């Protein structure tokens, strides 16, 4: 049986208390929400915090406020489980991309446990790293934990472990922000800015900060979509995530667009020029193909996840096509069924 190491456990009731304990414990403490990422990591000794600060009882982290400010914005508490997000009718209706991303995370059980906040703060992944201590010892460890070389890119100065969160690219495409709370104050950053392109130092969140909520901008006029590549219909992390959000005028002309990629770098990221390329055009096959080619050129999959890397890069433009065609209103159900293996 894989077992956790010993640790101290705190179960605060309020955010302020949690932040205070977090600040007091220092960098050896970690927050635990659903635990679905942290606990496997601890069992494999990737992460060995001396103290865990549980967010399970912290009040207010499960709130949903839907357009209460009258501006059409929506705020989702970081402590909501992914199942909560999937079952939220407003998310489904207004932010299809987020719904599709959340619905494809892991498995039904893990979505019942894993939180939105935890999903955004997910550790980066690499198949030289997500292994037991003994296995890693056999390869003499790697830079991310206990060693000094990167086996994926032996000349690399930095770790290229993969950002594997599904919701982050969807939220980036939607232009979402997150709120970070600490004993010393509170701030808001865009989801895109939450990440560094570094497999070890992947979050711009300070160790004493708690992610409390996600703010989604008003959805009117926008359509969004998320397409995930993975081997099986459940369990598997993405080896490619394509998220798109497009705002169209009534005549179908694109007014604004964002395409974000997941699982092809150490961070999820917005493909800068892709949106601009579509603006002012209708979503024609040509425009979609052009966007696909551009986005594909930005994907840099590494040989540290499932499936062949050249192939993974090769299919990016197809996946961009699926997302944009779905947004255009094409009937993508058959393709969706083949790729996701269930309806979304």
């Amino acid at each position: 049986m894989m077992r956790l190491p010993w640790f101290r456990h705190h179960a605060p009731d309020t955010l302020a208390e949690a932040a205070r304990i977090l600040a007091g414990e220092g960098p050896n403490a970690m927050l635990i929400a659903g635990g679905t990422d942290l606990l496997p990591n601890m069992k494999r000794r990737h992460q060995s915090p001396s103290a865990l600060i549980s967010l399970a009882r912290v009040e207010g982290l499960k709130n949903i406020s839907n357009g209460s400010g009258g501006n059409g914005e929506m705020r989702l508490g970081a402590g909501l489980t992914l199942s909560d997000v999937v079952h939220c009718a407003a998310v489904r209706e207004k932010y299809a991309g987020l719904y599709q991303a959340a619905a494809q995370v892991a498995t039904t059980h893990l979505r019942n446990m894993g939180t939105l906040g935890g999903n955004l703060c997910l550790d980066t992944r690499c198949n030289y790293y997500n292994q037991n201590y003994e296995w890693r010892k056999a390869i003499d460890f790697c830079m991310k934990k206990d060693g000094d070389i990167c086996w994926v890119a032996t000349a690399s100065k930095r770790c290229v472990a993969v950002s594997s969160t599904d919701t982050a690219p969807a939220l980036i495409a939607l232009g979402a922000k997150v709120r970070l709370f600490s004993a010393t104050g509170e701030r808001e950053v865009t989801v895109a800015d939450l990440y560094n392109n570094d497999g070890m130092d992947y979050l711009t969140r300070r160790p004493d900060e708690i992610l409390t909520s996600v703010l989604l901008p008003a959805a009117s006029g926008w359509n969004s979509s998320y397409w995930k590549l993975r081997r099986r219909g459940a369990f598997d992390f993405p080896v490619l995530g394509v998220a798109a959000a497009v705002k169209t005028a009534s005549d179908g002309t694109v007014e604004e667009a964002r395409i974000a990629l997941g699982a092809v770098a150490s961070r999820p990221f917005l493909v800068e020029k892709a949106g601009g390329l579509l603006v002012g055009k209708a979503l024609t096959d040509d425009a979609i193909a052009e966007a696909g080619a551009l986005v594909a050129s930005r994907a840099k999959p590494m040989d540290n996840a499932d499936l062949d890397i050249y192939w993974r890069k090769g299919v990016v433009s197809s996946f961009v096509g699926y997302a944009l065609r779905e947004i255009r209103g094409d009937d993508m159900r058959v393709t969706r069924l083949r790729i996701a293996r269930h309806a979304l």
Partner: protein
Amino acid sequence: MNAVVEARRNVRVTLRVNGEQTEVLFAPYKTLLEVLREEMNLTGTKHGCELGECGACAVLLDGVPVLSCLVLAIECEGRSIETVEGLARGSELHPLQAAFADLGGTQCGYCTPGILMTAKALLDKEPDPGRERIREAISGNLCRCTGYLQIYESIEEGARRMREEAK
């Protein structure tokens, strides 16, 4: 209240398992899976990876299917836990159990407790789910023996029997 658990000391937690309150003493690193199996002798809940990768350890926490291998037992105080041991009413099988036994829903039986609990949670919410809903609901439970088809049939039949009973 801030419950701080000091290292290397056992903790005492009151758990409500299958409707029964029990005080259990265990090392705080133990997951619900370990506490159920090793401290409470409820070995009906199985394990195949302890990393969230198979679903064999699924139990219901407040009626929701979760993976007991990734739940800290110390966080379960005051919550309702249901395991396969609590499924039958006395010696009478739950209709799902009966259907699994009758229709080949169980071969080696190792994935069975996790799947039964998952299916129970589904049927408690949706008494008449279609095949697609069933496929989705148990997609987090690996079964290496059956190929799942007889499991679907068992759940469908269990659902039918439960609806009969409810009439």
